[in-house]
């Protein structure tokens, strides 16, 4: 009893009007999606863009205010709560529409609304030719709403609302230019693949809920879960620990949302959407939801070492394979997409080895530099009238200096060049991976090297060398407008400087970031720090040097191939008879395999069942009807010749009589009356006498 009382006290939190953070983007979305078309027709696209951006910025301001409030609280009590209303209360299930704001959500919300606002501003410039700005900004606002709900949700079901809601927005924005079936197909693919993950997520949630209900602690509220999950210890289902099963199912959900093997296939296709969407949803925010969810439930995942190993392995494998695919792509957005998949792999690797804070840290830095890269790419694409093939770019440095500068900074950051944001976060992950398993570290290192290579391949192909732009696009080459470059500059600043939030102790930093997150992930963090056996700083330095060297190697290689041309890309492509190159270029044929195996399988099954339904199930019904009809025909024959024969015979007799009697029918009324009266007389006489 005492323990539960204490639990409740700890979970009390400070009441704070968090609802405005989500309500403002929702209002923007509602206005723009319902009345936006008229607004745009009446007041021009600026109106809808300003409305959308204003809501986003206002939300950001609210987040900052909440963040400041949170910081003012003592470390142990850093929790803001806002219960909007009750939602579902049936039996053991008691779920409220409630929002919670703790250090982890604070980081996420700042990223989402901050970068989100920048991207809103950027979009104003990027979407200048599109007639449906209202829909675009409405969907972006709706996305912010859903994403913030996902992050702020106080329980798993509210989180799930956001979880699927971002899927909806992603669907709507990937297929934004819906008159082209390539885009809508990509949108559907994204939604469906996500749904597979959601299906597992739901099952995981059910299992978790009922397992806890068995121990009398049924809840889906994160704060309470932290105290309830130890009850799962020792429970098994289908020969597996319940904790393991739950976390595995949730992780499948995460692979769907965060594009990990095996459900990563939708993300590269999702590049069909407008570039700001790719930057916001498919790089900086939505795809990191899986990482966030695992960190949010870190106490649960820490109970399942097997799951953690699976996560680490999947993360590392994804990081590596996606990087190999990125090496050979020509489409600049595809390169960035695989890079995103790869970087997400890093994050999973981190959380898999229990380095939750490092995972979130990388999430943060990645949000900056990847958003910047995407927006930079978008700036280029916009300038080139929607040309995305790097083979038809080149030499843009002189035309678009700001874009080039910011792109370069971000590329340096993602490559892990010391001093830039990516260096700190990536190094932290590799260090923790090494502590857990050197093989994982080696894979991560290789991926880091490849990342450096393909990012600089992209930089060199796009901005350096001679200009290969053709047609009249070349004549109009120019730097983008300030609404587009301003976000680039801000993000590049982040890409350069965000790393200093979490400088590791080995480099003399205090790692503010990790400390900030400590209340959320403290248990595991403390445990692992001790497992590391104090601070083997020498080893850390060695590893750091190695990773920097690898990155340098990657950059050097790219330089040699694409600037100096002293090495030929063809040489590398020909290695092993060209098989590795073709595998990489064709993305290991995974799409084709999925398409042929799963999609066709389901479609064939559905056609077969529909055929069975029409011909067998309904056939039986119609057959039964036919049997009845035939037997009724048979009965009809009997009826006709035997039964009806009798009837007809009778009828004939009646007919003859009728013919005779017909003569009585004169049609004269008086005659009838006579008959009537005489009959009455007859009757009465017979009675009277």
């Amino acid at each position, binding site marked *: 009893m005492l323990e539960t009382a204490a639990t409740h006290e700890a979970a009390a939190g400070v009441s704070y009007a968090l609802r405005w953070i989500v309500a403002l983007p929702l209002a923007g979305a509602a206005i723009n999606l319902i009345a936006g078309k008229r607004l745009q027709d009446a007041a021009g696209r600026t109106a809808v863009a300003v409305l959308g951006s204003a809501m986003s910025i206002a939300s950001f301001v609210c987040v900052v205010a909440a963040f400041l409030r949170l910081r003012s609280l003592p470390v142990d009590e850093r929790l803001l709560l806002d219960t909007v209303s009750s939602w579902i209360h*049936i*039996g053991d299930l008691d779920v409220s529409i409630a929002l919670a704001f703790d250090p982890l959500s604070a980081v996420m919300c700042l990223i989402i609304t901050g970068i989100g606002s920048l991207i809103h501003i950027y979009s104003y410039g990027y979407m200048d030719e599109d007639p449906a700005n209202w829909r675009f900004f409405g969907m972006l606002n709706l996305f912010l709403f859903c994403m913030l709900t996902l992050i702020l949700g106080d329980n798993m079901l509210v989180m799930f609302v956001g979880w699927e809601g971002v899927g909806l927005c992603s669907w709507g924005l990937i297929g934004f230019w*819906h*008159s082209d*079936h390539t885009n809508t197909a990509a949108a559907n693919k994204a939604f469906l693949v996500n749904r597979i993950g959601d299906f597992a997520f*739901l099952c995981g949630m059910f299992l978790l809920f009922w397992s806890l209900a068995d121990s009398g602690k049924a809840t889906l509220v994160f704060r309470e879960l932290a105290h309830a999950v130890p009850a799962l210890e020792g429970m098994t289902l289908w020969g597996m620990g319940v904790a393991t099963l739950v976390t595995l199912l949730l992780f499948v959900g995460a692979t769907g949302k965060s594009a990990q093997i095996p459900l990563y296939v939708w993300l590269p296709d999702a590049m069909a959407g407008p570039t700001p969407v790719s930057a916001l949803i498919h790089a900086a925010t939505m795809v990191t939801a899986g990482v966030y969810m695992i960190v949010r439930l870190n106490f649960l995942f820490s109970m399942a070492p097997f799951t953690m190993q699976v996560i680490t392995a999947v993360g590392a494998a994804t990081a590596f394979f996606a990087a190999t695919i990125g090496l050979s792509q020509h489409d600049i957005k595809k390169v960035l997409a695989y890079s995103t998949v790869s970087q997400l792999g890093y994050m999973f690797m981190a959380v898999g080895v229990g380095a939750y804070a490092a995972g979130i840290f990388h999430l943060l830095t990645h949000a900056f530099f990847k958003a910047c890269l995407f927006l930079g790419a978008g700036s280029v694409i916009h300038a080139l009238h929607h040309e995305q093939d790097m083979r038809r770019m080149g030499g843009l440095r002189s035309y678009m200096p700001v874009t080039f500068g910011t792109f370069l900074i971000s590329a340096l950051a993602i490559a892990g060049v010391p001093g830039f944001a990516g260096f700190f976060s990536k190094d932290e992950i590799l260090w923790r991976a090494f502590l857990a398993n050197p093989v994982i570290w080696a894979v991560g290192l290789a991926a880091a090297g490849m990342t450096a290579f393909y990012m600089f391949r992209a930089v060199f192909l796009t901005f350096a060398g001679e200009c290969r732009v053709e047609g009249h696009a070349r004549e109009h080459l120019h730097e983008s407008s300030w609404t587009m470059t301003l976000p680039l500059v801000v993000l590049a600043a982040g890409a350069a400087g965000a790393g200093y939030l979490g400088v590791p102790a080995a480099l003399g930093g205090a790692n503010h970031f990790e400390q900030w997150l400590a209340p959320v992930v403290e248990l595991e963090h403390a445990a692992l720090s001790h497992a590391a056996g104090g601070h083997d700083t020498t080893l850390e330095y060695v590893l750091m040097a190695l990773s920097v060297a690898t990155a340098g190697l990657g950059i050097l290689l790219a330089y040699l191939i694409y600037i100096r041309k002293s090495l030929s890309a063809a040489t590398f492509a020909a290695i092993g008879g060209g098989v590795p190159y073709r595998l990489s270029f064709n993305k290991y044929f995974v799409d084709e395999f999925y398409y042929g195996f799963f999609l066709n399988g389901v479609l064939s099954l559905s056609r077969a*069942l529909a055929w069975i339904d029409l011909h067998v*199930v309904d056939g039986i019904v119609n057959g039964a009807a036919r049997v009845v009809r035939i037997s009724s025909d048979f009965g009809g024959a009997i009826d006709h010749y035997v039964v009806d024969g009798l009837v007809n015979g009778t009828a004939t007799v009646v007919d003859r009589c009728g013919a005779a009697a017909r003569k009585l029918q004169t049609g004269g009324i008086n005659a009838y009356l006579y008959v009537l009266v005489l009959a009455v007389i007859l009757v009465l006489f017979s009675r009277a006498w």
Partner: protein
Amino acid sequence: MENVLSYMTFVPLAGMLAVMVMPRDKHEVIRWTALAFTLVPLLLGIWLYGDFDGSITGMQYVERHTWIETYNIQYIMGIDGLSVTMVLLTALLCPICILASWNIEKGVKGYFMLFLLLETGMMGVFCALDFFLFYIFWEVMLLPMYFLIGIWGGPRREYAAIKFFLYTLVGSVLMLIAMLALYFHGEPRTFDMLVLMERAPTYARSFQAWAWLALFVGFAIKIPAFPFHTWLPDAHVEAPTAISVILAGVLLKMGTYGILRICYPIFPVATQQFAFWCLAVLGTWNIVYGALCAMAQQDMKKLVAYSSISHMGYVMLGMATLTSQGINGAVLQMFNHGTVTAMLFLIVGVVYDRAHHRDINGFGGLASVMPVYTGLMTVAFFAALGLPGLSAFISEVLVLLGAWQYNQALTIVAASAVVLTAGYMLWMLQRVWLGPVNEKYANMPDLSARELVTLLPLAVIVLVLGIHPHAVLDLIDPTLLALNRTVADAVVVSAQLLH
């Protein structure tokens, strides 16, 4: 307002009489009259919604009159948490359907007369508490439906109507047998369901089993559960839009309603005995089978019809679980499916009115042509595929949550339908609304005000119930909990009686 249920039931009948005496060529007058007479039950329904006490488990607004004394047949009307949702759904959908029937030009008078009679039948089924009365209303509703499909339907309307009629008639016959068996089984003879429920513990196991199965088949045809479902696609394809809406929105619910109203409390032991195979397994199969069949359809209405089969599977699965989440989810799903599918059929009806065909591959790019329509369509489609925040999600999640406790394997199979449902819904959406604009339909007008009025209230309900499901759950929860308990306790009670 003690007789509110009778008013709700018989006002449409009065409307039918009113339409009957009108000249047949005064179409506008007939339409407005029909609308007025369906609005009355709606207004009463709104009042009822406010007045109904959800915390009471028993019957409310009970009216009890002797009807045919010789056979102890009574006129008993009353609603509890289970039926109130259905009554409200019926009251809501009927005016919408009248509006959706506005452009019927053939035999206007007959159409609206039959429609009003249909509403009386439906209301009666949900309100009647005397089994005989229930049966009468059940049949009353059948007849207009037959004519509405058979006269105002599509090219194969006669086949569809006869199929519907015969199928339902088979169900009715089985129900009649079970009803008479119940009647003759106790002293004093009665059709009073409340009395029959009290007698439940006295029924022998084998009697319960046979009667339960007879009733189940009768109701399963209506749900429709595999393998009795093949009348549904045909009926839907041929029926006019409004009739499809009623068919999917209200009539299908009568099957599951009947099981919950009659099979559960009167035959609790048999319910427990058969719940797994007949409800849970069959329901799960319905979910997956319906979804897969839907995916292969080329006709928009057929697709929606199969999706109905799939969604009704959730209801069966939910009520089989006998958990509070499952059964609440099931009844909520009945309501939500009523609104969502109504929207889907109305949406299909809109394009059908304009293009006169429903071939999924024959359209394309409607989103660019009809933005308002597309917005509402998106709400309906995403509600149908269970997007959180919209109504159907709550009910599906409750059903699946309840089912998980009941049987994990079935739940996993059933839950896999979330992927399939998303698949066929989005695929249809993509083929019809997205993509390059089909030149043939480039000038299709957007929704008219009348069509907007039919769709908008439903969309609002779908949104509101997604955020505030207790608007319905508060009405049904206590009743269903009591029902759950009845069934759960029955085995114990009957065991005690045997000793």
